[in-house]
């Protein structure tokens, strides 16, 4: 395999992410970076269904919630080790995603979006009301950190957790790249471009759509599990429709249907509010405006703009 310029870019990005904690003087920004890396995982999942397959799903935060609650509850009730419940959480999420995806994928386009949104509301209502299981609005506290207190790594230290999340986010980004480059990925892109045509050449598109949907949910479930053990506290409020919209925003802003897009977009949605310290109403207006303008003027996101710019630059040099 020859080293292409994009590979060099990825390597450089990985190195700078690895060095990042050494340059962060204020731990608060390390905290935000951890949250952003968790969002990278969820956004890579969202990108599979939204960016590659062309189906806007508005239930990603609901799936993050299922992942977070399943890891916390399995640890609480069955006393399983943390690393195991983190691994099981995406599997639990996948089961829910199968049940949700099967009926939802019977409709296309906008209706798929609305139906998934309804499912996000249902997940939220159940998390709020099923007190005996989820403890309702009060939430679950004291979710343990991975590792034992006298183990090799001090997981309470945010730097340790940063590297843990970085490794997972890099692996999941790699996995997303593998999926999209595979034959499955090619079929998903074909579905986005012309679903009828895919059906016409004898491929049962629904299997591929369900695969993309469930995989996307598993990414979310994993992100949720990592989030739960990082914050040690979860309650339903952060698994609502607004956060699902953030996942969509991350994909659109970064560049939908690209692998780098969700990475950029995730950092964008986590850090943007920090620099938009206005009242809530202004933040909403600016978010909305960014979304509308980005869709109209740069439908391929930041990655799209960067690519066109570098193409233009390369041509100039020749």
């Amino acid at each position, binding site marked *: 395999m020859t080293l292409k310029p994009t590979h060099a870019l990825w390597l450089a990005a990985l190195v700078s992410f690895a060095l990042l904690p050494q340059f962060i003087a204020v731990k608060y920004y390390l905290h935000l970076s951890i949250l952003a890396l968790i969002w990278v995982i969820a956004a890579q999942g969202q990108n599979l269904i*939204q960016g590659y397959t062309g189906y806007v799903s508005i239930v990603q935060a609901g799936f993050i919630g299922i992942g977070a609650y399943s890891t916390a509850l399995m640890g609480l009730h069955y006393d399983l080790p943390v690393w195991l419940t983190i691994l099981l959480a995406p599997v639990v999420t996948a089961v829910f995603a199968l049940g949700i995806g099967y009926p939802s994928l019977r409709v296309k386009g906008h209706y798929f*979006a609305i139906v998934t949104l309804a499912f996000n*509301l249902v997940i939220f209502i159940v998390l709020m009301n099923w007190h005996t299981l989820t403890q309702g609005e009060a939430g679950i506290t004291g979710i343990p950190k991975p590792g034992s207190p006298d183990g090799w790594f001090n997981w309470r230290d945010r730097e340790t957790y940063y590297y843990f999340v970085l490794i997972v986010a890099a692996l999941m980004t790699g996995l997303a790249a593998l999926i999209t480059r595979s034959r499955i990925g090619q079929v998903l892109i074909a579905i986005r471009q012309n679903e009828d045509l895919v059906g016409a050449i004898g491929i049962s598109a629904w299997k591929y759509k369900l695969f993309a949907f469930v995989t996307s949910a598993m990414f979310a479930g994993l992100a949720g599990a990592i989030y739960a053990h990082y914050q040690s506290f979860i309650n339903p409020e952060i698994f609502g429709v607004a956060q699902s919209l953030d996942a969509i925003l991350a994909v659109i802003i970064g560049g939908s249907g690209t692998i780098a897009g969700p990475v950029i977009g995730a950092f964008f949605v986590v850090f943007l509010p920090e620099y938009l310290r206005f009242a809530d109403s202004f933040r909403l*207006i600016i*978010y909305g*405006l960014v979304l509308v303008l980005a869709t109209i003027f740069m439908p391929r996101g930041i990655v799209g703009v960067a690519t066109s710019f570098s193409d233009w630059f390369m041509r100039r040099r020749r």
Partner: protein
Amino acid sequence: MIEILQQIINGMAIGGVYVLIALGLTTVFGILGIAHFAHGSVSMFGGYLTFFLMTSQGLPLAVAILVALATGFVLGLLIELLAYRPVRSASHINAFIVALGLTMMVEGLNLEFFGHEQVVIPTDFNRVFDIGGVTIPELRLYVILAAALLIATMTIFVEKTKTGQAIRAVAENRDAAILMGVNVNTIPLVVFAISTMLGVCAGIMVGALFAIAPGIGEGLVIKGFAVLILGGLGSIPGAVIGGLVLGITEALAAGFLSSAYKDVIAFVVMITVLLVRPQGLMGKA
């Protein structure tokens, strides 16, 4: 028996609001293929505006409603021209994302102009009628009647007027409509103006009967889409029946099954219809 009748009456008021929201959505979707997610927040803007005109400007209810309707007309034109027209030829996913962005903007503007406190449009209709043990407040009765009147007007407009026929022609076959000399640039404008005015009416009804507050519009638009899925996409009778079915189902679910899960039950009904009859109750197979 009285309990069931009372619950049906209870559900009809909110059902009427759902119908109006769904009518606005279904015309936009049926004709332009856009899932206009911002419709709920725009409707709430209409309700807020009416409240503002009455309490801060001292206008009487009827005048405030007329001003709000005129504003809704203009707002509809602007939404089409500035937000949706630029993405008309792009894929549908883009229009939907624009709709999401628009929702955030309108919600933010509502918050900025009207604050986060709930708002109730004041009316003088305080009597309560009691018919054999079934009670119905005067205001609820008027809301149900007004919704019925608007539905009838909308049907006559689409079926009988020339503009209505042009709209239907575009919905059925865009290319043929162009050949017949229909101006496909003005039709979307008309559709958005009408849809927004219907939304403003719904917003006023919600504001008078219940309250307008941040987030209420988003809740309503989701119910509106549920109605469309129930009734069948782009179908006016479907929107009417779907809206009433949803409103009454919610009331009966809260009264006889579980009040905590009444919304879940409503969505379960929607999903069941989707599985059994994907084209909706009134849609063509």
